[in-house]
């Protein structure tokens, strides 16, 4: 029986292991990227990865909400925007306002607004919840546009100072890269802890059957609001980092298409898989440049296809469909199964070697 108990936390420790490895890997990317010839992938990897990290903050939180608790949101660009505008307004209006405090304020305000709207709206289910959150996102977008005295209207807010903390100024992409990705990994750690805990089981239970979860003593309505607030705060944090990264915000960065992009990242990566969010972000970030690079990799392409801006989105849409057809549970799920497979193989290989060694003796 004790053997049983000892074997169960396996998945958990694998998550921590993967987290440690991927953190090391991601922190090495800038070193690595400097030596990739510029003409292989037509992107500035560090710059693109900062934005990916910022989106990852949102998507990791959204995965808790959508993938684990089963509550959809098509309005998370709004929380992304609230975080961005909060710190942008504080840091440009109040001279010398500490930027890290602005980021915290953005996170907190986003969470608070998440609580205010989440409480009534989360009584809705399924597509009706999708519609309501979509509506909230649109309302937020219109407010960003119309509240000129506060948000600068359609022109937006210029000259946002770079992030600085503990006397360090994160004014280049490379410096910001480390801040952003350490934050992402911290959020990942938080999520891994959470889903393997009592709370995480409660959320998954509520996803599976709200009635049964209720009956088993899970306070589903409170849990729904709490996880919504958490994901709103994550999105706000991402937004605040975005403001200090781009140093300029305007409403166009917080449109419905961005909300849909977040959800797509969650689903393509893998709903309810803790790595799904991260993988979805990386995949959808690097898909367009890979598509863009295709013509030079395949020189035989007809000239009509060489005109890249025409076919990029055609191919992107097509690939999105294909991914969902062949990996409907997300790429993370596919990778997980592959990892299981290799691990089992490796273990068997190890056992066989051990056996051989014993025989040899």
């Amino acid at each position: 029986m004790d053997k049983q108990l000892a074997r169960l936390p396996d998945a958990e420790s694998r998550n921590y292991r993967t987290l440690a490895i991927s953190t090391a890997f991601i922190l090495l990317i800038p070193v690595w990227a400097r030596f990739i010839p510029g003409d292989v992938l037509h992107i500035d990897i560090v710059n693109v990865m900062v934005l990916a990290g910022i989106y990852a903050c949102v998507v990791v939180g959204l995965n808790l909400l959508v993938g684990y608790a089963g509550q959809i949101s098509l309005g998370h660009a709004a929380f992304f925007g609230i975080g961005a505008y909060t710190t942008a307004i504080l840091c440009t209006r109040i001279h010398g306002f500490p930027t890290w405090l602005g980021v915290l304020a953005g996170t907190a305000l986003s969470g608070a607004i998440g609580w205010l709207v989440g409480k009534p709206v989360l009584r809705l289910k399924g597509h009706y919840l999708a519609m309501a959150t979509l509506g909230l996102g649109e309302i937020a977008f219109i407010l960003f546009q119309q509240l000129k005295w506060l948000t600068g209207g359609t022109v937006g807010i210029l000259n946002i100072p770079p992030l600085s903390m503990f006397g360090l100024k994160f004014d280049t992409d490379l410096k910001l890269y480390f801040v952003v990705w350490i934050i992402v990994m911290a959020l990942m750690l938080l999520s891994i802890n959470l889903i393997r805990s009592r709370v995480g089981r409660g959320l998954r239970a509520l996803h599976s059957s709200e009635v049964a979860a209720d009956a088993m003593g899970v306070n589903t309505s409170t849990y729904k609001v709490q996880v919504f607030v958490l994901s709103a705060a994550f999105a706000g944090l991402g937004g605040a980092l975005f403001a200090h990264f781009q140093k300029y915000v305007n409403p166009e960065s917080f449109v419905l298409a961005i909300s849909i992009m977040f959800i797509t990242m969650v689903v393509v990566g893998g709903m309810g898989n803790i790595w799904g969010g991260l993988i979805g972000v990386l995949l959808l970030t690097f898909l367009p440049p890979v598509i863009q690079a295709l013509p030079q990799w395949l020189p035989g392409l007809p000239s009509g296809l060489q005109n890249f801006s025409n076919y990029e989105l055609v191919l992107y849409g097509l690939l999105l469909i294909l991914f969902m057809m062949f990996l409907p549970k997300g790429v993370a799920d596919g990778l997980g199964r592959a990892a299981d497979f290799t691990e089992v193989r490796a273990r068997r290989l190890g056992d066989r070697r051990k056996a051989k060694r014993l025989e040899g003796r």
Partner: protein
Amino acid sequence: MAQKILRWKLPIALFCVLVAATLGSMGCGTQKVDTSKSVYKIGAVLSLSGPAAPLGQPEQNSLKMLESQLNAGAGVNGHKVQFIIEDDQSDPAKATAAITLLINQEGVSAMIGSSSTGATLAMVPVAQSTQTTLVCCAAGTAITKPVNKYIFRTPPTDSMAIDKVLGYLTGTLKATKIAILHDANAYGVGGATELAAKAPTKGITVTANESYGTTDTDMTPQLTKIQATPAQALVVWGTNPGPATIAKNMQQLAMKIPFIGSNGIANKTFITLAGSAANGVAFPGGNMLIPSSITAGTPWRNAVDKFTTDYTTAYGKAPDTFAAHGWDAGTILTTAMKTAGTSKAQIQTAVQATKGLVGIDGIYNYSATNHDGLTSADLIMIKIVNGAWTQIK
């Protein structure tokens, strides 16, 4: 214990491979070899897709045309010129990524773009921090006000267009009361705000200031509100297809007051969409739209004629003002490189010192305090008569 070690073995092995790959690539990785040192690279971030695509595509066309014309000749001081064009999909975040890529990765010496005000403003911090000269094709006033050392502009600003419209209202129409109906996007709001602020200084009262959504298909409620005011003219600030819908709705409501558009409808698409409702509509536009408005024989007229012919030959349709913006941005930068050199500082100095440069949009003059290049004299008022443009003298 043994099991635990085993569990870590695979990932650690993987990690070691990665580190080895990293070190390996450090050793033998191709450093960015500049085999083409003699090519002058200029980056361009344009909106080739998304809502601003109708702006970005002609800009791209003329940049490509400029590139091939320059390289067919002597290039710039014997060096080939390359415009590296990126699509920002009308998204500010993508514009930032694209300019970073072009400056850091491609090592361009100057930048062009973007097509819309929002995307351009998103590019400004990057241009500034890397001290790269950026010549934009967007008309929003906020881009050059206050003047930023590295940011220049080719198109006539919204302010200039507004001045032109106000001149038309007071001069030709003798109107004292106007209504404004504008798109709720950056372009529409920017124009409407400035128009509403400037109108009183010319003795004009704004009786109504309404907006519509970019994708709205019916503006009659706003128009009926305007109908209820004593406005003598309606100024519509927006890009297609909104103004065409408004023109049709006005026809439906039998509204007879003059319709004055923005430079956003300075294209044939507006006439196609609005049909008979387009007749009588006036708007500010570049001289290049009606080449005969420029004195024959002047260098400007010659340039416009050649540009129009070349563009029409290459792309099968007459150039619009956006094509002119792209061409002029390219010309300004290559001229600066020709006269001063290709370091970022030299380009900035040379562009700022530009005087009397003949473009397609007009004659460009920049200074330390003026990065707008053109003046409202480079615009004319155009009226649509029987589906064709005529200059209002």
